[in-house]
């Protein structure tokens, strides 16, 4: 007799835990033929707010880690994902991908994570500067994470799109509230399990599933979110821009095709960094006096 398979319950990932949506609602993820493949949490405005609280709480821990440490944590994500490759391939196939495409997507995702793992303790050296001011001061500019970032994951892909935007944001020390692809949500929650097993502190990445139209407004208008990242959803841009005005969120909109090899780079990290400049007097440099 054929063994009865144990099916997976997809929940959300918030504050390092896997609760159901507080609303108790669900929506159906379907395959290209229209068959139901899973009940996904239809997250609510309250879930968004809870996730922002978690993200803010974990920001100090994550941004306070050494860049070298963050680099190792990101590399660990790649290691764990490599070990669970097959599960993601299966999910991608279930959501309509061909086997060959599915394997490529997972492998590209792993490579992209390794790429950003390497950047963690390097991007600052490239974008920082010691500024030769014309007075007797030592002056330097360096990066600091912008803070809590709201990420509307790319719609068209279940894993690679999400990874391509999430990794540069967290490699720079930010924390994230991520809204998964509405049409292809499966991998996002399974990826949350990978994050959970990879020493990424709880709350650094929070992943919600549900309707974009319902979750984008509370996320992009939330006063404790510092930046919004999204790609592809051009029709949402004006609303995101408008919602972001009140606390002057930094809005980053991309038109990248994430499956391209070059859809990665330093600027995806620095787009979510603030430049901080620090001054201090130097005693009697070149005979000149700074007075103070």
């Amino acid at each position, binding site marked *: 007799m054929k063994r009865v398979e144990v099916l997976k319950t997809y929940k959300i990932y918030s504050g390092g835990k896997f609760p159901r949506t507080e609303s108790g609602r669900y929506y159906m993820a379907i395959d290209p033929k229209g068959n139901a493949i899973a009940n996904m949490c239809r997250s609510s405005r309250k879930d968004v707010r809870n996730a922002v609280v978690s993200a803010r709480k974990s920001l100090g821990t994550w941004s306070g880690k050494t860049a070298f440490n963050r680099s190792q944590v990101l590399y660990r994500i790649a290691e764990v994902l490599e070990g669970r490759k097959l599960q993601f391939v299966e999910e991608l196939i279930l959501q309509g991908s061909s086997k060959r495409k599915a394997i490529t997507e997972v492998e590209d995702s792993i490579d992209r994570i390794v790429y950003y793992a390497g950047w963690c303790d390097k991007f600052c050296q490239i974008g920082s*500067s010691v*500024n030769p*001011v014309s*007075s007797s001061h030592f002056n330097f500019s360096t990066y600091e994470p912008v803070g809590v970032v709201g990420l509307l994951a790319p719609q068209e892909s279940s894993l690679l799109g999400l990874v391509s935007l999430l990794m540069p944001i967290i490699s720079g020390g930010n924390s994230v509230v991520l809204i998964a692809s509405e049409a292809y949500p499966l991998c996002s929650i399974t990826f949350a399990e990978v994050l959970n097993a990879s020493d990424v502190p709880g709350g650094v990445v929070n992943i919600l599933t549900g309707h974009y139209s319902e979750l984008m407004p509370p996320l992009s208008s939330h006063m404790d979110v*510092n930046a919004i990242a999204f790609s592809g959803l051009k029709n949402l841009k004006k609303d995101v*821009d408008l919602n972001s*005005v009140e*606390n*002057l969120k930094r809005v980053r909109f991309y038109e990248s095709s994430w499956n391209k090899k070059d859809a990665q780079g330093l600027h995806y990290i620095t787009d979510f960094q603030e430049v901080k400049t620090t001054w201090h007097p130097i005693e009697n440099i070149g005979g000149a006096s700074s007075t*103070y």
Partner: protein
Amino acid sequence: MASKNKNWEYAPSLETTDHINLKKKYDLFINGKWLKPTSKKHFNTINPNDEKHIAEIAHANHKDVDIAVKSARKAYDNVWSKMPANERGKYIYRIARLMQERSKELAVVESLDAGKPIREARDIDIPLACNHFFYYAGWADKLEYAFPNRKVSPLGVAGQIIPWNFPLLMAAWKIAPALAAGNTVVLKPAETTSLTALKLAEIIADSGLPDGVVNIVTGFGDTGAAIVNHPDVNKVAFTGSTGVGKIIQKAIAGTAKKATLELGGKSANIIFDDAPLDQAIEGIVNGIFFNQGHVCCAGSRLFVQENIADRVVRKLKHRMKSLVVGNPLDKNTDVGAINSKEQLNIINKYIKIGIEEGAEIYQSECNIPKKGFFCPPTIFSNVAQSSVIVQEEIFGPVLTIQTFRTVDEVIQKANNTPYGLAAGVWTDKGSRIFNLTTKLKAGVVWANTYNKFDPSSPFGGYKESGFGREGGMHGLSAYLKLS
């Protein structure tokens, strides 16, 4: 004007004005020529020191702005974007040199029109403005070095709107990087301080810069709105209030216009008990009374460690007695005229709120001139974190003083504001400086100094103080398309 404190009386030392050239009436500088506004309207600009009329300034309407944007587009398409980068740079160098040659005139005009002390205009505003052009000129043919692995190209036409607190300096901060990056410009100065921008237009005309590369349109908020909303403007750069910054953000929502906003602040200036006190007092004074407190990064919230609070306040009051308030053209003057009647009313409104909230006020004893717009240096102690005068930007010579005990406490208090432009830290302990400079959420942190600026040093805020940086290598990205 002499101080009431006899130790600090100086004979007046007025800067002369016979060497400056001002027209009675200024039109719009568009396509290298002076065009009469199609609005047919001019308005008066006055000297805030004595409320006397200086000149008539054109009020550009949306048609005038359209003509300016079209000429900027034409100059971009036909000339500026095709010019080799090193040649572009040489024009910018020329502008810097011509400004240096006429720096005294620019300083006097700035002081007359804006009310700022001639000493500050002469030693800070104008040299920094010249240096800004000189600094960015050299970037024109080196842009790709600043952005590794990326292709750089200009954005097109930049619409730029600047405030009245550092009129020429802000024009330089906007125009210099825009030109170096290969863009053409439509700039609108603030209505109360158009003159130095118009003098700059004369210099630009003299420099031989191709017609239409820089266009200067004067006017009010409606002129600025016409620039922001013009469909052929690719970039909006604004320095001013957070309120107007948000209006601009709303106006360009959903468009492809790139924006940088340099907005308000309520910056913390933090004094620890081991700080070099005499220098710290100078830093406090410079932080809040420099340019009458009309400084977006002014150190308007003072935090003093509790055990030295009495001493610091005593010393500060003593120092305030020697501040000379009066005629901006007098070289003895430390605190000049408030820029406009409107701004004076705003400051006085906040002073009234402070008193009504129960804060303890101290104003330096000085003879305020009868004519003109003046406000004595003012400090408020006994204020709460929730006081209106602690939370809102006053943009005048008004300081609030709070105390703290521990490092963590002051970090929390300092960061507890929607703004994040600047901060100051005064302590003798290096490790503490780096702890604070790392944790203070602000774009510029001055340690054991305050209100220092340099063309090579990026400036700009976190949070609601705006986004983007001006100055330095980082200031270039605001005017480039990177791909």
